[in-house]
């Protein structure tokens, strides 16, 4: 594949997919903006390298989210994280996320704090199952675990969220039955 073709396709993909990836990354990193941005950039670099595979995927955005979640879990296993710094480039193509206006700050912080109480694996399950609305099978495939493990982690995660957010219990109880 010619690099110019790869670059054009990649640019179009990033323009479409990055806002969603960044929002998922914010949930996974429980609001750590810098870590979320790093995580997304690391994933995008990996996708660029594997672009022929990404382009052939049935759903490239799903492919990207799968890479994001696994990148997050790998990253969480490292004691010391290394940041990859951006470099200036005169040829800039900027992406402004749309529909990303700040929401209710108190509720946002409550949910992020509750998510932070979950182990990375459970948090990943919650994001895939309840934010991206992936099925149990899709979540299991993405994380490389069994469907039983997905259900178990989902159950534990929702129980923990109930404990951390007692006022939200009715909402979470309803969700708990869907796993």
């Amino acid at each position, binding site marked *: 594949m010619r690099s110019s073709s790869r670059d054009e396709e*990649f640019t179009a993909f990033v323009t479409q997919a990055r806002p969603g990836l960044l929002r998922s990354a914010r*949930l996974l990193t429980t609001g750590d*903006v810098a870590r979320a941005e790093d995580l997304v950039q690391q994933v995008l670099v990996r*996708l660029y390298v594997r672009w022929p595979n990404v382009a052939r995927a049935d759903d490239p955005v799903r492919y990207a989210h799968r890479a994001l979640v696994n990148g997050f879990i790998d990253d969480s296993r490292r004691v010391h994280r290394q940041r*990859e710094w951006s470099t200036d480039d005169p040829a*800039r193509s900027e992406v402004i996320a749309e529909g990303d206006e*700040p929401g209710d700050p108190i*509720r946002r912080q409550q949910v992020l704090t509750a998510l932070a109480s979950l182990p990375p694996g459970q948090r990943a399950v919650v994001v895939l199952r309840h*934010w991206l609305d992936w099925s149990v099978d899709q979540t299991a495939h993405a994380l490389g675990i069994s469907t039983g493990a997905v259900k178990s982690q989902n159950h534990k995660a929702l129980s923990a969220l109930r404990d951390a957010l007692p006022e939200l219990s009715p909402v979470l109880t309803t969700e708990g039955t869907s796993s």
Partner: protein
Amino acid sequence: MTQLHDLLDTASRAGSPADAQPAHDIATDIRLGRRALLRRRLAAAGGGVAAATLAAGAIVGGSALFNGPAEKAAPAGAGVSVSSVDSATTAVLVDADVAAGPFHFAKVPQGWVSGASSEFAGNLVPAAGGVSQSAQDFAGKITALPSTQDMPEGINTKGGAGVVSVTRSVDGPGDVVSLTVQVPKSVGLTNAQLTELAQSVTLTSAVSAAAG
């Protein structure tokens, strides 16, 4: 959409207006992706030494100049492949005026010509062909690779898959401070010739280092 989804929707939003509209530079993603791709292709080509020069903080176990054993190899100009590294004719290094992209070679092994190159790598290829036409596939090619890392100078004969490399300091362009020339052992250059070849390479301002 469920209620939990709504909560996650709120939590996934930016925490402040400043975070909501970060100016993201796709060109940076592409640049980092190109570097990662180059490192991966270098490794795949067996250019262990050259790949190491591109890894931040890597140290090449380069021996002193003229320390290594003289290499014996195929006739210069023959089609060279990674699998043909052990023939037995010494190459002839000739004066030349060869531009491989933004890299200029004042000396080349006889029978070698300019190949597809990029701002990250200048390639010489056998005139007889037999190698990839991709500028980022270095198998069977003589490749000049700039680096922003201050690499130890000298010859390294311990690279993978039948390659030998020589590194020297350079002063630019930009942040480039080292230049490594990777040569298939099959070319048959002596250590003195390797050094002469590396010293003959000059870089124009279009050269970019692939090191992170």
